Every structure is written in C-alpha cells, then in structure tokens.
C-alpha cells in the first residue's frame, strides 16, 4: 500500500472512530490513546503512534464535554499527529505538536457542524407531520457528514505536514521540539494528578 493510500485509509478510519466521541456508542474508541497506536500500526509506526496518542490523551483529558461545550477533538489530534509523522514525514515531536494544534483547530469545525444541524429540525418536524416517521435517515445523514468532515480534515492536515516537511530548515526546529516533547508526559501527569486531587479536596 502506498503512503497516500495508507493515509487515506487511516483518515477514513479516524472519521469512523471519531463518531464514537459524540454521535454513536461513546465507548471511548475515539480516544487518542487507542487511535494513536491503531493508526501507527496501520502506517508502520505503532510505537510512535502509541507515544503520540497517550501524550495527546494526557493533555486532552483536561477537557470535559459538559453542557454542549465542544472540546478540542482528541481523535482528530491523534490521527493528524500520527499521519503528520508517518505520511507527512515530520519528526514525532513536531508531529505531536501538529496533532495538538489539529485537535484544537477541529473544534470550530465541529461547532459549525453541530450548529448546521439545528437547521434540520424544521425539516424533521415537517417530515413527521407529513406522516413519515423514519428518523433514522437524519441520524445517518448527520453521522455521515461528521465522518466525512473529520476524515477530510485529518487528510488535509497530513498533506499540510508533508508540505511543511519540504520547507528548508525544518530540521533545525527538532532539538527544541524534541526537548519540549520530552517534557509533555510530565505536563500530562500533572493534569491527571491535580484533577483527582481537586476532587478529593472538594470531597466529591
């Protein structure tokens, strides 16, 4: 399988797994900790995929999706990070930070998708009022659009990473990004520690 085809398959898989985050199931299959090694394996770099995935997970666990808030998208982040490394050719450290940015960047798109679905309510009401009770088609449509959006976004980020990799002097960034990358586990562990410490302090 060529790198481009692998990237396309990975993006499609990311789009499918991404549905689990909000729309279908919510078994946490869309979490970066799983998406990272899975897509890494598909692209021949399971170890780097797992590292990128778990570090993104540690940072993204800081955000809680309550009350309709759109948090940064962990699935998009992990998929984009792994593909930026495997298909885009960036070093894992820079790919990781590209993944962080990609996850944050997907949130406004997700917000727009959710907002655009508000416009469907009138059509759904009209359909039901007309005696057609097939609600499943609207759910399927919403999931298909979200799937395509996420897959396309991940593929676009991977393409952008490949272009960045062609720029002269990118390798000069790596000593700095490698060092910052080596500190990310501690930043993530800090978030994990303080999350539960605060809960204990507040007594539940």
């Amino acid at each position, binding site marked *: 399988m060529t790198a481009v085809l692998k990237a396309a398959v990975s993006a499609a898989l990311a789009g499918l797994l991404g549905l689990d985050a909000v*729309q279908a199931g919510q078994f946490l299959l869309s979490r970066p900790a799983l998406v990272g090694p899975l897509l890494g394996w598909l692209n021949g770099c399971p170890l780097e995929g797992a590292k990128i995935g778990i570090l993104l997970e540690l*940072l993204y666990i800081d955000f809680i999706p309550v009350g309709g808030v759109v948090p940064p998208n962990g699935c998009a982040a992990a998929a984009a990070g792994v593909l930026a490394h495997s298909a885009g050719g960036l070093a894992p450290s820079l790919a990781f930070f590209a993944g962080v940015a990609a996850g944050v960047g997907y949130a406004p798109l997700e917000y727009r998708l959710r907002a655009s679905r*508000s416009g469907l309510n009138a059509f759904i009401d009209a359909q039901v009022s007309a005696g057609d*009770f097939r609600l499943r088609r609207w759910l399927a449509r919403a999931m298909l659009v979200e799937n395509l959006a996420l897959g396309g976004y991940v593929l676009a980020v991977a393409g952008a990473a490949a272009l960045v990799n062609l720029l002269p002097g990118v390798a000069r960034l790596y000593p700095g*990004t*490698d060092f910052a990358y080596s500190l990310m586990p*501690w930043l993530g562990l800090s978030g994990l520690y303080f999350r539960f410490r605060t*809960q204990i302090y507040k007594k*539940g």
Partner: protein
Amino acid sequence: MLFKMFLRSFFIQAGWNYERFQSLGFAFALQPALEKAWPDREKLKAALLRHLQIFNTQPYMASFVIGNIARMEERAAEAGEDQLKHMPGVKQALASSFASIGDRIFWGRLKPMTVQICLLVWSACGFYGWLFTGMDGAVSFGVLLAGPLAGIAAYSVFSVYIRWKGLKAGYACGGSANCALDAANWPRLIRLLSAAGFAMSLAIALLAFGLLAGFNCGSCRPADLLLKLGLPLAVLALHRVMRALGRSVFFSAGLILAASVLLFSLLGLQPFELYL
C-alpha cells in the same frame, strides 16, 4: 421493546444540535415504545413531535429518562392523555438531575481513570515509552493495544451496564420526577471513584519519579540528578500556576514549546539529554 430502545440509546447524540440538543436521538430511542403505545398514526405523530422538542442530559444516563418516559406514554395511552400534562416537567427534572450525576461519574472520574489504567498496564508490561519519549525499546503491538483497551473495556462494561440498568429502572418506576434517582448510592460511588482515581494518580506519579531516578542515578552526578528531577517538578508547578490563572493545559504546552525552540533551535544551545 426495551432491548430495541437500549440499542437505539447508543445513538442519542447522533443528531445533537444547539437548538434542541439530543431531541432527535431521544425521539429515535423512544420510538419503539411510542409505536407500541400509540397504534393510531395520528397519535403516534403527536407523540413523536412531543419528543422532538428540546432535551439534553448526560448520554449514558439518558436511559433512565427514556425508560421513565416510555412508561409514562404507555400509561397515557391506557388511562387518558391528561396523564401527559406532567410529562415535560418530569422529563426536564430527570434530565437535569441525571446530567449532573453522569457528568461527575463518567466525564469527571471514569474517563480519566481509563488513562490511568492504560499507564499502569503499560508499566506492568515493562513499557515506559509513555514517560521517556526517546525510548525505543522493543515492545509488541499487543502490549501497545492492551493498555488503552484495558481502560476502555473497564469503562464500557460499566457504561453499558448503567445504560441497561437505567432503562429498566426508569421503566419500572416511570411517571415520577424522582424516579430511579435512588437506583444507586451516587454520592458514595462518586466519592469512591475520586479516592480510587487519586490513589492511582499518586501511584503513577511515584512510579514516574521512581523510574526517572532509577534510569538516571547510575549515570550522572548528583547535581545532574537534581536537575533531572527538578525539571519535571518545574513543569508540574508551571501547570498548577497556569491552571490557577485560568489558562488551559495548551497554554503551558505552548510556553514549554516556545522556550525550548528558542533555547535549543534558535539560540543553538545544546539540549541536555534528560530522559534517555
């Protein structure tokens, strides 16, 4: 019918939008009960339109409300439609209560615990790449998957159980605004999960610092060791301060990245190999 509703409840957020939130998924999940209760198409239409109105709660806990409302609709079909007048109030009250409980249990506690389980499984299997990003030891794909899958399995077993239990409990006591709120001792469960999460956090922090000291103590001078232990502590302090200032974790990550690129990429300082 309950099982059909249970399966459909997995898609309660598929049509989530800012105008009516989970209404489409809720109506879709409730549809089997409505079809059974209202064989007349006009009445079924009215029932579906009733439940296409605004609704939002925590997705795993939604089944408590679905079960309750399914029973209320059945009663209304049997005893008269005046039974429906309390339904919006009951639905709203339960949605708010279960959202608060579910957010605390699932998002606030169980979800971060899946990461802790993953890290502990990886550590038990001898994989420390999650801590030392430069470590490239041989590790099987099975181990890499076992970590996240262990956390996800534990989480999903509980969440699926709650969905099913909620549907049955809600259906059993449908009609009351406090229906199934006592299905479990929620405050106790929340306290237990907080304690378990904190204990695992502490174990992982001790493990991380222990590994850091263990990997470095034989190969460097005491001053270097202090630096290697001090830098992670500085990162923890930075994160704590930024949180207190209301900044997200990305702000801290950005600061670390900017400082590292400035020092080691632009100014050309030699980055010391901290973590292998």
